[in-house]
């Protein structure tokens, strides 16, 4: 039983640790140290490198907007990770779901509907969500009905999606030029830029709003209660009257849909067309974003900004000091490994 001391004022550190804030911060710092070590080994001054990184991500209003541009799909996919992981559905397929969403958004965007942007864009968002959700459906279904490991199936589907895009842009959806990409989307179908002279687009706002929606979903609704309960204890959930099959399917569809929206945002906001490889691994990075964010929307927002900064600044780091941009995967992978160590014991509040 708790003793009296615990009921009184506890140190600020203890509170932060308990609320799962301190641990991720420690992990992030440690991974930067690791990155620094790698740089030292290859003869690069980490301080210069990190300075270049910081300048490129936060140094000017343009850099900040670039960071947010990269953070946007990370945030959306990270939110999807929250929904899936919270019911122990290990959806590693966000990468493929992004592409699926992008495909659907591009298709709908290219339709000659002659609708104002105000109507056409939400339709594209919907299409993106549907695309991502459908793409997530098969692995989800296989898991709940046939108990097939979803990690392998979702990863396989990622490769399928990448090649599907390749097929489409070289073939049926190919535009008029020689390059393998779809036609440029008409301007009313592209997400408007909100800050002039930057690429800061509407999608970022949409993503932040979605974070709030996900928070509400997980903690304030019946479905969210069910998702958390199924993830906590499957048998107890069943005995309590929850149908885990429908809960996991919902979770899978929602998480796929969120990634699909990320795909729409990239295709409609940044690329303005469907093109191969438009995702530099957002889906996989989102796993780290979700975990570093402790599967909570606020944490995921912060983590997405962090990773967005890493992504947008890494090219600058490469040109400034010759550090290959792949170092961010080292940092990201390390974060996932470190977080996984505590993942089992902590209570997912």
């Amino acid at each position, binding site marked *: 039983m708790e003793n009296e001391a615990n009921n009184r004022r506890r140190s600020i550190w203890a509170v932060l640790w308990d609320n799962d804030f301190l641990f991720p911060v420690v992990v992030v710092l440690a991974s930067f140290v690791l990155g620094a070590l790698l740089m030292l080994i*290859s003869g690069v001054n980490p301080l210069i490198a990190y300075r270049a990184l910081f300048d490129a991500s936060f140094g000017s209003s343009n850099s900040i907007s670039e960071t947010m541009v990269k953070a946007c799909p990370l945030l959306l996919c990270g939110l999807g990770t929250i929904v899936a992981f919270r019911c122990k559905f290990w959806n590693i397929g966000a990468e493929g779901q992004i592409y699926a969403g992008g495909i659907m958004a591009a298709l709908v965007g290219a339709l000659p509907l002659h609708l104002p942007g105000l109507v056409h864009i939400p339709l594209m968002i919907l299409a993106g969500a549907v695309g991502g959700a459908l793409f997530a459906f098969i692995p989800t279904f*296989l898991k709940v009905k046939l*108990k097939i*490991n979803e990690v392998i*199936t979702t990863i*396989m589907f990622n490769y399928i999606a990448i090649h599907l895009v390749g097929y489409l842009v070289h073939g049926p959806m190919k535009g008029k030029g020689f390059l393998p990409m779809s036609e440029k989307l008409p301007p009313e179908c592209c997400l408007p830029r909100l800050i002039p002279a930057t690429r800061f687009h509407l999608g970022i706002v949409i993503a932040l709003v979605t974070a709030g929606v996900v928070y509400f979903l997980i903690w304030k609704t019946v479905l969210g209660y069910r998702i958390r309960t199924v993830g906590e204890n499957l048998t107890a959930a069943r005995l309590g009257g929850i149908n885990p099959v429908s809960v996991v399917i919902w979770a899978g569809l929602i998480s796929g849909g969120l990634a699909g929206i990320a795909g729409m945002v990239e295709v409609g906001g940044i690329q303005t067309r469907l093109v191969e490889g438009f995702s530099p691994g957002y889906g996989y990075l989102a796993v780290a974003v979700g975990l570093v964010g402790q599967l909570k929307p606020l944490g995921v927002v912060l983590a997405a900004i962090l990773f967005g900064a890493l992504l947008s600044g890494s090219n600058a780091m490469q040109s400034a000091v010759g550090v290959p941009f792949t170092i961010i*995967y080292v940092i990201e992978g390390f974060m996932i490994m470190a977080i*996984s160590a505590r993942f089992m014991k902590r209570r997912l509040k």
Partner: protein
Amino acid sequence: MNEYFTMIFFTGFLSGLVRIGTPILIVALGELISQRSGVINLGVEGIMLAGSFSGFYICYLCNDPWLGVIAAIITGGVLGFIMALLSVRFRANQIVAGIGIWIFCQGLVGFAFRRAFGIITLPPTVVGMTDLPIPLLSRIPLIGEAFFSQSVLVYFSWVMVPVVYLFLKYTSWGLKLRSVGEDPAVAEAAGVNYMLVRHLAVIFGGAMAGLGGAFLALNVLRFFTDDMIVGLGFMAVAVVFFSRWRPVWVLLGAFIFAAASALQFRLQAMNFPLNYHILLMFPYIATVLVLVLFVRGEEEPGALGTAYEKER
């Protein structure tokens, strides 16, 4: 004309089958040992990449593929050790830890590759391994060249299948390994050192993954790019599920999966009228289909995926 065509297709196909099947087999055997001890290691995809890079690079520097193989095994073993630390010592969620290792390796290899070779237009190549034809057998028409005129590592992988089988079923170490995978509490009570056994098993799995990657770089492709391992590691994990954790079935499974890939290459080479991109999807679709048709959720080692907490 048709017979000639069939012959070329067939021998080419079989050769490709062995070339792709061997790394899958090697990695899958290692993963089998790891899973039999209760640890599912999804990081093998990344460890394969790390092994292929270290093997390739050492060979490139020293012009000796076997030094490369040794480097790859060591690299894989070290990464396996990291996975063991995470999943056994720190009782991490094995799935998440494995994904972390995969991404970590991608970054590390990409980093090392670019630091080593700088910015280049064409991927670097090596001469790599030479084949060792088995005297009489390699003359058998149709299959001789494909099966018996291969590198030593290929023969090694075949020998490992019965070795692993005998190890698991008939040796005391195999018994201890299996006990840790079935029920760590009972194993501990019987005096088995659960931590040590799981560590060794996962290190072995990592070493084999590194070896498989090296084979791919030094024997099959003979060049290096950092996106060479396109899902082969995950396919190896799928093979282990497919095999119901039995060594002989791992052999069968590895070749079934390899067939899908090999078929795809062959069809491409023949300008088969199916779109190139669709063909590329083959191995992945095949993996999912195989899992659907053959794999259910039972029969796994009792303690697979769980970590054991001992009250002191």
